[in-house]
């Protein structure tokens, strides 16, 4: 479970409310007599004997305010509890009931919420009469709809999650569904809501008493005291100040509890401060000059680090030649996207890129003073999710030509003409109509084509494609991959192509860089990858782990199926896929030696665990190196 992160408002407010509650318990024992004793002068001004003066009957106002704490708190707690229990029961039960009950319940909540809570309470109070019990019922029931609406909304998001569906399929009865799955998962926000509701209920109850339809004499709460204080507001303001301050302080403290709880329960808070405090310097290894001089993109010893110095990308070097498609492949967390986003200068907030060299031709990508015009026009980007990369409120045409208009000064008709042309190039039918359409009017494949059109429009020298086909269907994927290859061959645009799918990478790229745990482990030609000539044990394992479309025996070209295909109706024994034991190390726990050592089938004792394998002959592996040139 998440720990509660204590914060100042929460501590102050809980302490304050604790003191008030204590006061509520002890005050009647200590000052009851003083509060009810008649005598002295009526409506006396504050004095040493009566700090807040006396009321119309000569009773001490301070003592009465303190003694009223108990009744006020009792009523507030009871009414809050009533509102919370009635409201959240209604709000959650609708989500474990059948469709009809749910529809009816939700509409009922809608109708109830449309009446202001205080009006509802006044109606109920009028029906039930006056007195503390009636007030509690009125305010409690009046506050229930708000609780019902909020819990219904919160429960809705939980009720539609898979684990609730699973529980239903397992036959978990509705009451248990409620107690086990719904309530625990909304308890956090509910707690916050509860403390805020406490403040509201306090004000509403005081309001009822103040209006004279709540607590009646001889009982008194803060609202009733406020009522009697109002009569003498001009002659003795102190009489009204006592209860007013009490209501305000208690209400504000309850609100603070809500704020504090919200902060304490939010897992996203707390980290930011710790982050800002220290910012260790990231040391970058010296230039290694591995890239050819005519490379278009040069990345030399790139480090992408968290603010605390943890290296998510650790000394990555690669280059992209003009007209080349370089594939960057790895599993989630391998740092492939961060590497690519460093090149595009689109790292998420908080991450920093450091490198011995990070350049697109003569454009230095490490500096802060970089020409945004060159950056926008020389690098085109295609993201994974075509539905998230367009603004749904703007037409496709305007979004395609944004770079043209902003950075290249192309206007109006010409910009549209260029957009239509680009859409034609990405094989979209009827481009003149598409530019006038909104993104939601296009299919997923079309949107990704339009995204590619936007990327090629300014005539970039490099396209960074981050998992561009992962969200697409396989037939659409094939078409988009064809299109990218086509753009590469006709326009000569270089590409940095990121994918987790080794099949996609092998199909579309010329050269492939394999990443593991933030480091490059191997670099090989796509032809070698396709032929299975990987050398690093991780690349080999990755290839072996992927299920194949055809068996080895059926893709030889000879018709062996007649011999082996007879047993299709019996249970066929299938060879298990190769797996890699263990998990990749977290960036903070990356070992001193090879990051793959713990999972490696050919690990060398003493060497792999301690010494980081250098990139030699395109492979970073001690075992491979020893094999090539035995020590």
């Amino acid at each position, binding site marked *: 479970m998440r720990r509660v992160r204590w914060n100042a408002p929460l501590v102050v407010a809980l302490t304050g409310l604790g003191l008030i509650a204590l006061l509520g318990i002890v005050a009647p024992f200590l000052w009851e007599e003083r509060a009810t004793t008649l005598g002295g002068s009526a409506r006396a001004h504050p004095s040493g004997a009566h700090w807040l003066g006396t009321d119309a009957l000569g009773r001490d106002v301070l003592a009465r305010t303190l003694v009223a704490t108990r009744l006020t708190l009792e009523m507030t707690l009871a009414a809050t509890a009533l509102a919370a229990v009635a409201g959240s029961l209604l709000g959650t039960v609708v989500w474990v009931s059948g469709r009809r009950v749910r529809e009816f319940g939700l509409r009922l909540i809608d109708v109830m919420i449309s009446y202001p809570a205080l009006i509802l309470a006044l109606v109920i109070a009028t029906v039930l009469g006056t007195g503390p019990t009636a007030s509690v019922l009125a305010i409690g029931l009046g506050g229930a709809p708000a609780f019902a609406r909020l819990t219904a909304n919160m429960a809705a998001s939980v009720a539609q999650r898979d684990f609730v569906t699973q529980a239903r399929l397992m036959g978990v009865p509705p009451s248990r569904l409620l107690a086990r799955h719904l309530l625990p*998962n909304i308890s956090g926000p509910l707690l916050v809501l509860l403390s805020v509701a406490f403040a509201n209920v306090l004000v509403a109850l005081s309001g009822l008493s103040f209006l004279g339809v709540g607590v009646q004499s001889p009982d008194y709460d803060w609202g009733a005291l406020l009522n009697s204080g109002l009569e003498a507001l001009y002659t003795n303001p102190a009489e009204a100040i006592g209860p007013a301050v009490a209501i305000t302080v208690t209400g504000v403290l309850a609100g603070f509890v809500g704020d504090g709880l919200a902060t304490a329960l939010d897992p996203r808070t707390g980290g930011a401060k710790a982050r800002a405090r220290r910012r260790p310097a990231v040391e970058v290894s010296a230039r290694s000059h591995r890239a050819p001089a005519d490379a278009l993109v040069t990345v030399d010893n790139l480090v992408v680090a968290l603010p605390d110095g943890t290296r998510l990308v650790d000394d990555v070097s690669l280059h992209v030649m003009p007209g080349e498609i370089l594939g960057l492949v790895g599993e989630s967390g391998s740092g492939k996207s961060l590497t690519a986003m460093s090149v595009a200068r689109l790292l998420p907030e908080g991450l920093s890129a450091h490198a011995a060299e990070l350049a697109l031709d003569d454009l230095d990508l490490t500096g802060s003073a970089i020409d945004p015009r060159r950056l926008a026009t020389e690098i085109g980007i295609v993201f994974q999710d075509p539905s998230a990369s367009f603004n749904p409120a703007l037409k496709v045409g305007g979004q395609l030509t944004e770079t043209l208009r902003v950075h290249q000064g192309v206007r109006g008709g010409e910009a549209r003409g260029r957009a239509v042309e680009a859409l034609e190039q990405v094989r979209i039918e009827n481009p003149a109509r598409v530019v006038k359409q909104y993104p939601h009017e296009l299919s997923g494949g079309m949107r990704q084509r339009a995204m590619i059109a936007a990327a090629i429009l300014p005539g970039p020298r490099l396209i960074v494609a981050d998992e561009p086909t992962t969200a697409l269907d396989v037939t*659409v994927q094939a078409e988009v991959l064809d299109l990218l290859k086509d753009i590469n061959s006709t326009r000569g645009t270089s590409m940095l192509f990121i994918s987790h799918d080794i099949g996609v990478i*092998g199909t579309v790229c010329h050269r492939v860089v394999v990443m593991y745990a933030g480091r490059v482990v191997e670099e090989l030609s796509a032809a070698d990858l396709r032929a299975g000539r990987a050398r690093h044990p991780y690349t080999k394992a990755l290839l072996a782990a992927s299920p194949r479309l055809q068996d080895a025996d059926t893709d030889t070209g000879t018709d062996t*199926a007649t011999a082996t295909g007879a047993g299709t109706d019996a249970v066929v024994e*299938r060879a298990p896929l190769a797996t890699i034991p263990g998990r990749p190390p977290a960036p903070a726990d990356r070992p001193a030696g090879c990051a793959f050592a713990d999972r490696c089938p050919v690990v060398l004792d003493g060497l792999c665990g301690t010494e980081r394998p250098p990139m030699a002959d395109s492979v970073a592996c001690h075992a491979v190196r020893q094999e090539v040139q035995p020590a």
Partner: protein
Amino acid sequence: MTTPPYKLAVEDLTVAFGHGRRARTVLHGVSTGVRAGQTLGLVGESGSGKSTIAKAIVGIHPVRTGRITLGGEDLTGLRGREPVAVRRRIQLVSQDPYASLNPRMTVGEAIAEAVDPVRADARKHAATVGRWLETVALDGSAAARYPHEFSGGQRQRIAVARALAVEPEVVIADEITSALDASVQAEVLNLLEELRRSLALTMVFISHDLAVVRHVSDEVAVLCQGEIVEQGPVRDVYRAPRHPYTRRLLASVPAFEQKPTPGKTPETTPETTPEKALGMKESAA
């Protein structure tokens, strides 16, 4: 050679969403089935209706017409009267390993709930929970931990263990490896294969990934826009696909191995098979 009857059969199933003129039919008279101890692979692209079939079978989506039978017993008629007993006979494992486990329940409680949905007493069913965790190659100590302490692959194995703990007659796996990395996916696929052998598991395996479906299935049914266009033993369908859509699907997979040699299965490009239904996908909506 006589083929055994289907354990779970879907006959002429039609599912539509909405009412009246706004109704949208997503399954058009689908008929398929899976034999005891075998795995049926359901493959298709997004919007083909493969998940809808799963949800109709377990009773989440109402069936408009057609029958779903389990061991010869009509489930469509039973719905409403004995839903709990029926539901427990078929279990669903879903795609997202982060949404399918309640974050506030320990793994032990989650599996105990599958054993006894009313009480869900992890302590009373500790032995059973331990056995199921062992079945999916997890340590017994996992029972005391919460889902967030596990990786995606481990969570998916827990989800499988929970489905098995119900001791259902059929397990429906809906894209259960789609959210996993290749090496983790291999682990889960190997586990399914092992369970199929040791427990004679009857399974419907739904995926958009043709290579994965081929790896786990005995028979495969290819769905396209709410209709099954081809069904048969996995070897036959993958080696000699008869329907042009199946051929196009297979040709689209970016894989390293040689595509089926020409003559045996003509390799088709999208341009040469202007498949009407699919051609529409790429024109403006």
